């Protein structure tokens, strides 16, 4: 049962293509698993399409740049396009699977073409980065083994997490497969997992450990980020 969804303004930014690529991938991966958000996205898409293409929005935009392509260019472009063959190759939809801790995990469709780099382990934590160029953001798979935890930490930037397998708990609640969690510098948390878990994460900055001895672990913050 999915209990944590992206907020509506995140879904709106997602539909209009304004979120960074890596964050878009995580939102898309949640939407793929979540019927509720699929309906939301459908609705928002129809609304945005209406405002982009219906006459009402033209009224609001009086005063905007005059828009006209010269007739010649237009006909050239039409000729060029209609000379092309239709794209009938069937769309590749076979799921991509990766081995995590010697178990197979089916990746979300949005990651179909994104290359996963090698796993690096540290105690009960292991992490593999995705090879996706997206400014200062890093996207990874994070695996926490049975009974593992990440010491209490805050996020300097923000961290988006989608739980792909297993479950974990933190001060704010219990999370299960499909849950979407957005944390930022205001949140401090200590995720603990009984059964183990695999998460898709995007972080915009290193995480920072806040308590006692675990501050020695701050280099791990780099590792997880």
């Amino acid at each position: 049962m999915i209990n944590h969804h992206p907020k509506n303004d995140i879904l709106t930014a997602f539909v209009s293509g304004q979120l960074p690529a890596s964050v878009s991938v995580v939102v898309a991966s949640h939407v793929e698993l979540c019927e509720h958000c699929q309906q939301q996205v459908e609705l928002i898409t129809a609304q945005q399409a209406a405002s982009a293409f219906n006459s009402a929005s033209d009224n609001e935009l009086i005063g905007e740049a005059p828009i006209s392509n010269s007739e010649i260019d237009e006909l050239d472009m039409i000729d060029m396009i209609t000379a092309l063959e239709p794209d009938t190759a069937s769309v590749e939809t076979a799921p991509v699977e990766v081995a995590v801790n010697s178990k197979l995990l089916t990746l979300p469709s949005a990651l179909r073409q994104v290359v996963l780099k090698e796993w690096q382990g540290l105690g009960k934590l292991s992490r593999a980065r995705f090879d996706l160029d997206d400014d200062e953001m890093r996207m990874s798979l994070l695996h926490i083994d049975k009974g593992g935890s990440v010491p209490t930490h805050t996020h300097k930037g923000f961290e988006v997490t989608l739980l792909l397998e297993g479950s974990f708990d933190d001060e704010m609640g219990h999370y299960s497969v499909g849950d979407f969690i957005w944390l930022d510098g205001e949140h401090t948390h200590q995720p603990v997992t009984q059964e183990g878990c695999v998460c898709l994460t995007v972080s915009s900055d290193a995480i920072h450990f806040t308590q006692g001895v675990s501050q020695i672990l701050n280099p791990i913050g780099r590792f997880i980020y």
Partner: protein
Amino acid sequence: MLRIDDYVEQLKARAMQKSVAAIDKKEVCTINANTMENQVPPELSQWLVDVANVRCKRAFTELFRFFSPKIKRFGIKQLGNEAQANELIQDTMTNVWKKAHLYNADKGAATTWVYTIMRNASFDMLRRIKSKGEVQLADDIWPTFADEQPEEVMFGDHLMEKQMFNYVDSLPEAQKAVVKGVYYQELSQEQLAKQLGVPVGTIKSRLRLALAKLKKQLGESND
């Protein structure tokens, strides 16, 4: 410290700045834009179908005339300059031409489908500008074909699903059409009978035969 709301606000502000900057360079248009050509024509959907089925250039030209000024406006807002907005028209309309067969009138309005194509093209363009040589991600993030998942409702397991597809594909044509209609397209037996031009009784018996065959194959390979 970046709160989620602030972050979205920043994104919106950035997008606004871009469009304002683009407009500033222009003369202001004083003509009332609300003319007839700005109404959404009811034929949009039919034009897409004609492009898909008979590669109709006239229908495409109509689509082009309707959408290109609006794509341009969207492009200026998202991409920030006119040259790229023109490129967006070309990318979007090229995909409309090449992928029209993926449009499914039952799943949504023509405008919604074209919006998806346009937003995806714009997203990939922005990525090309920002990071060279990247894969095209947009169609994986926002699939442009509508009926992608109905099969998963039936079979959770992917391997099982794949195997099932193979079995279904090996059925005789007449039975295959019935199984696909009922389970993949979720048509009623009556709808299907009408579509295939046979009595409902025939649909029922083909379905019975097909299912018996599938059960047998599954049973045989499960031990």
